[in-house]
């Protein structure tokens, strides 16, 4: 039963995890992107459509990522170039994503794809317990296992990471040393959109093999919440995503045991867990909100 819950946690947490890693990059550079939900939807549809047309889920992944990137480009342009309010813009982008995908997704509801399927890794998947939990997933899930340490390395062990973090914390210093924070922010938002798009692809092409209107169902917004819960740290965001997935798997398992707990109460569990986690994190005062999240740097005020 524990194995099932942990496996389920990874299965249903991976799409959220991709999106939260993307959001993390964007917020580290000082831009909140509530449009993540929209990017995921566009990624889910774009990835599904291209997989239908080409039969190749990898091309679908690329396309889905690019769709997520395109949507986030609107966000970047409005916020960074036009100086629009990031929260309002993000919300608009989210609803725009819902609208545009239900419009263009109309013809894909009944399409069938082969997509990504679980590939047990030889030898490793034979390990009792761990093998089943970790090494019997689809390729996009394996890729996400590699993504997180990579992102951590990039953020905390490379020059690029220093620049990215400085963009979100001490933009004036960065500006003085001859780097345009605006440019870094653009890159961060677009990278975030790409990853959110891939998260959408994981949901449509690898996990459900389906496209349905508004199928992301708030997972993009949960991803944004997870970044805050994770104090902007990649491994914590990963943990948070799996916690969310585990809560979903747990409520399904609990329902099947026939315990007298209302499923409608159980539906809240993922959110309650996230809320509780946030509270604990806040109490420990470990939160490290990037300074720039509270304002938008235009490149002129500091110059």
């Amino acid at each position, binding site marked *: 039963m524990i194995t099932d819950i942990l496996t389920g946690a990874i299965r249903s947490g991976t799409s959220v995890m991709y999106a939260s890693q993307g959001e993390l990059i964007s917020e580290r550079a000082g831009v909140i992107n509530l449009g993540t939900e929209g990017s995921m939807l566009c990624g889910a549809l774009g990835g599904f459509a291209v997989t239908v047309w080409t039969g190749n889920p990898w091309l679908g992944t690329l396309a889905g990522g690019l769709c997520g990137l395109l949507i986030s480009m609107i966000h970047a342009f409005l916020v960074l170039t036009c100086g629009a309010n990031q929260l309002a813009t993000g919300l608009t982008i989210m609803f725009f994503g819902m609208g545009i995908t239900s419009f263009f997704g*109309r013809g894909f509801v009944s399409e069938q794809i082969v997509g990504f399927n679980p590939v047990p890794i030889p030898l490793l998947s034979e390990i009792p317990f761990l093998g089943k939990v970790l090494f019997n997933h689809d390729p996009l899930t394996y890729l996400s296992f590699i993504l997180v340490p990579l992102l951590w390395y990039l953020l905390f062990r490379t020059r690029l990471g220093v620049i990215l973090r400085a963009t979100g914390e001490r933009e004036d210093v960065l500006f003085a040393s001859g780097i345009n924070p605006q440019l870094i922010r653009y890159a961060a938002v677009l990278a975030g959109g790409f990853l959110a798009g891939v998260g959408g692809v994981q949901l449509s092409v690898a996990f*459900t*093999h389906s496209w*349905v209107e508004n199928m992301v169902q708030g997972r993009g917004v949960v991803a944004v919440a997870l970044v805050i819960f994770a104090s902007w740290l990649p491994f914590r965001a990963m943990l948070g995503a799996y916690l969310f997935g585990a809560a979903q798997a747990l409520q399904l398992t609990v*329902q099947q*045991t026939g315990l007298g707990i209302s499923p409608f109460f159980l539906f809240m569990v993922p959110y309650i867990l996230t809320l509780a986690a946030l509270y604990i994190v806040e109490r420990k005062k470990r939160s490290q909100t990037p300074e720039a999240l509270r304002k938008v740097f235009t490149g002129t005020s500091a110059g």
Partner: protein
Amino acid sequence: MSMKTSSKLFGLVLALVMLITGCSQPGVTPAPASGANAEGGEASAAPGTDSPAVGFIFVGARDDFGYNQAAYLGSMAVEKAYPDMKVLRSENVPETAEAERVMEQMIKDGAKIIFPTSYGHLDPALNVAKRHPDVAFFHQGGLKTAENLGTYFGTIWEPVYLAGVAAGKMSESGKLGYIVSVPIPQVLLNVNAFQLGAQSVNPDATTSVVFTGSWCDPGQQANAANSLIDSGVDVLSQHQDCTKTVIETSERRGAMTIGYHANAATLAPQGWITGSVWNWSDLFVDMVDTAIKGEFKGSKYDGKFRGRLSENIVQLTEMGSEVPDDVKQFVEEKKAELVAGTLSPFAGPVLDQAGEVRFAEGEEPTLDELEAADFLVQGVIGNIPK
């Protein structure tokens, strides 16, 4: 200060989650059958007379391998039977005031006959019906009616019972799974019929029921399907609007599957056992015919109409290619008994999960009693959300 910022952010984000997930959940109206017919004032013309157009609203997409596809096929039959009539359709109409707006627009466009086809479209339809006594409404599955609003449905639990018989015969583990949305009577009735069917051929069979809280959330469906299969279930059935994800997931995992609403055998060439489907075509045409002739009132459609298996309004699909002949034959025999009326799935004694007698020995529940189902029968594992 950082603490304040992030708390604010989180609050906003949480509100958003609730907004999004909340929007997509269908309203769980307990809908007690209020017999009171609201309208007092007589309208001059009978509702629907000589309507130049007919409107259909669907809660989902017309090709969802499910509920909406079945209703859409019915609307196609109406279009074919009345080539001169304008057929207005609107898909993805939420079960909110938005549905009222869509129906008002259809009436403006000339429709005097409206089919609100989702359970949750009932209350919006009742509101619109009050304002337009000259328009006839045929609501799918509702338990409330009005002067100019009748509801139609089918006793889909009859084929579901047969599907349960087939599932009980086919299952090796004796563990069946049922993925459902919200605890409305239709849903509970189907789960009960399925379990009764399965245990009629395998007394040890159990049905694990899982609520997803939504009519169509592929992510949750895939979660639920995987979770049930992981726990040893080898036949999956469902009561969802879109059925594709569960059927495909079960096929990929090597489990067997029972379809619902529409024939989806092509999605599971290996695991498809059978499915319970709607056959609205002839019924829709007959209802439209009755209304345009001005005969809505007093017809069998102005109250609660329920089509039976014997009338071919609900059907059991052909069995899958992997189903052995003796099982096919056995189910056919049971079907013949159901149609002839010699077999009655809910004939007492029927016990609920707690072991209490719901229908006593020799008791034969009426359709109204069945549609008020608020319990799960013995052998079903899971709870009704309170």
